[in-house]
């Protein structure tokens, strides 16, 4: 039971990362029907920016108050990655909007290589390690399992961000515009919505959330590398499919479910650790064969 609880807690933490990244995939897919293969790398850029800012602001003692410093770090990194995301859309995707479905995939892969190598040139190819002890090493015991402060903070911050996003999408005018554009570009345009601006907005929001995930992964695991965007990106994408691609609550649910499935399978199945990644993809295949619209996805009639 303790083991189960511990695995579940770790699973929820990892699930929070997946969910944050998955939101970026799912929003872009919902609006452009494009798999943004560079999204994982934007998340990685966020992680590196977080690293630099942690060194510059906390370790140097520039901002003595930890909470204020962390807030500034999150806001700055999220803002910068959001701008990168919007720039990426402007440069690499917008010119290709009428060019079919294949060309943007290649462009996205190109962007992914480009971002990885920019980071590699700036930071070097080796692993970087977030300084230890930024957050105090506090943990609580729940039924024999431990929850650390980093885990709790991760959970709280991700739920706040996701709640904020959900509120934004469902309750504000801009959010309504996003949903309208996702349904139908042309009709949305007739209703006076500037579709290009909405697409830019989505490319600001998704990467910003991804960047937050990137910083938290740095704080949680410590080690970051310029190639890590691929692995996390693919997993987060599976999470988005699991919940139903294009569906925002779906991405959140899918992220948490995938994280929990994965850690439980790794903990309980024989050789589960080695097959952890395969489990994610097995789930992907089963979902797509049995229920292609995902758990929360609506049935959409495929346009021919």
């Amino acid at each position: 039971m303790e083991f189960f609880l511990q695995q579940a807690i770790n699973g929820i933490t990892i699930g929070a990362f997946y969910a944050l990244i998955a939101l970026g995939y799912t929003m872009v897919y919902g609006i452009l029907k494009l798999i943004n293969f560079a999204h994982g790398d934007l998340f990685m850029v966020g992680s590196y920016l977080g690293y630099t800012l942690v060194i510059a602001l906390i370790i140097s003692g520039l901002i003595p108050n930890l909470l204020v410093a962390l807030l500034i770090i999150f806001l700055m990194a999220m803002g910068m990655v959001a701008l990168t995301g919007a720039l990426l859309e402007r440069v690499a995707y917008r010119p290709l909007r009428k060019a079919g479905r294949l060309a943007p995939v290649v462009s996205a892969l190109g962007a992914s290589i480009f971002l990885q190598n920019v980071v590699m040139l700036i930071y070097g190819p080796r692993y970087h390690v977030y300084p230890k002890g930024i957050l105090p090493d506090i943990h609580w015991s729940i039924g024999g399992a431990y929850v650390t402060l980093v885990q709790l903070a991760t959970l709280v911050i991700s739920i706040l961000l996701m709640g904020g996003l959900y509120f934004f999408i469902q309750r504000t005018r801009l959010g309504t515009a996003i949903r309208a554009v996702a349904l139908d570009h042309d009709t949305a345009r007739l209703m006076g919505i500037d579709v290009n601006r909405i697409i830019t907005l989505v490319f600001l929001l998704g990467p910003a959330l991804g960047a937050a995930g990137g910083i938290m992964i740095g704080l949680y695991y410590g080690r970051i590398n310029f190639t890590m965007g691929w692995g996390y990106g693919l997993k987060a994408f599976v999470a988005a499919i699991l919940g139903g691609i294009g569906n925002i609550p779906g991405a959140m649910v899918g992220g948490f479910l995938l994280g929990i499935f994965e850690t439980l399978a790794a903990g309980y199945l024989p050789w589960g650790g080695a097959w952890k990644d395969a489990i994610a993809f097995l789930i992907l295949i089963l979902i797509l064969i049995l229920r292609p619209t995902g758990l929360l996805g609506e049935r959409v009639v495929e346009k021919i």
Partner: protein
Amino acid sequence: MKDLFLRLKGIDQRWWYLALALGIILFPWFTSNYWISVAVFFGIYALLGLSLNIILGYAGLFQLGHAAFWAVGAYTTAILNTRYGIPIFVTLPISALVSALFAILITKPILHLRGDYLCLVTIGFGEIVRLFLFNDPLGITGGINGIRGIDRPSIFGFVFHQPIHYYYLTLAFVVFTIFAMRRLENSRLGRAWIYVREDELAAEAMGIDTTQVKLLAFIIGAAWAGVAGTLYASRYTVIAPETFSFWNSCVMFCIVIIGGVGSIPGVLVGTLGMVVLPELLRDVLEEVVQWRMLVFGAAMMLMMIFRPEGFWPSPIRRHELRAAELTASE
């Protein structure tokens, strides 16, 4: 200058082809072993590109896990050869067959999926195959180290062991494949593929069994990738799971798209761009070798922005894109 250009253009096309053929045949005699190896590498990727071109180019099925079929071919050869001592030229057809069977097994349940969904399932299968090779549950794939000590191919006592031997062997395979693909392209099946790509519903209404036709695209494409896998395994004599990663599936995908979907010369140009260009950049940017992949990524984006139909598109495909632009602008 213009005069010269016109005169060059006036020369019978056959002379150009002859010159090209001579150039390709004589190439290894005027260059270093390094560039011969690059050419062999090019040939193997050209085979992979041509095999993916059947699935992605002709039939229009998004396949981002082609490395899996390549891996099945390479590992079949490696296992049969190192464990049972079966010569490479005997394992070659067996590998093709095993890859084809594997394709039937995994694609049969997913053929009804469209577009991006198919793309994702193929990514999933590709990763699972790689993890299978990596974790080695049956104890035959050698885990992370892969399999070493694969024989060189030999025929009537002649062993292909030097780069130049491989150059001609690969060349023979590529030339044969190109001829076969050209015949296939204009066959009943080839036309059916293109029809399915252009309009699946209409194709079905015309009496094409779309499921069967799509399955055949996967079978033939996978078998050919299996052949390329055999060549690869025997050329390098060592194979490891990391070769068959998602990234290499992406490279193959880009080869087909950058060259021009459904176009045989396009695939060759695409292979030059994706496989040989990084090598050339290694030479040119010797001082700043770490900039190589950065330039490469930017080039991929620029290529798609300025020429989304690919470098050398097939006429049908070009027409299709133009038509879409025309209706969009109306």
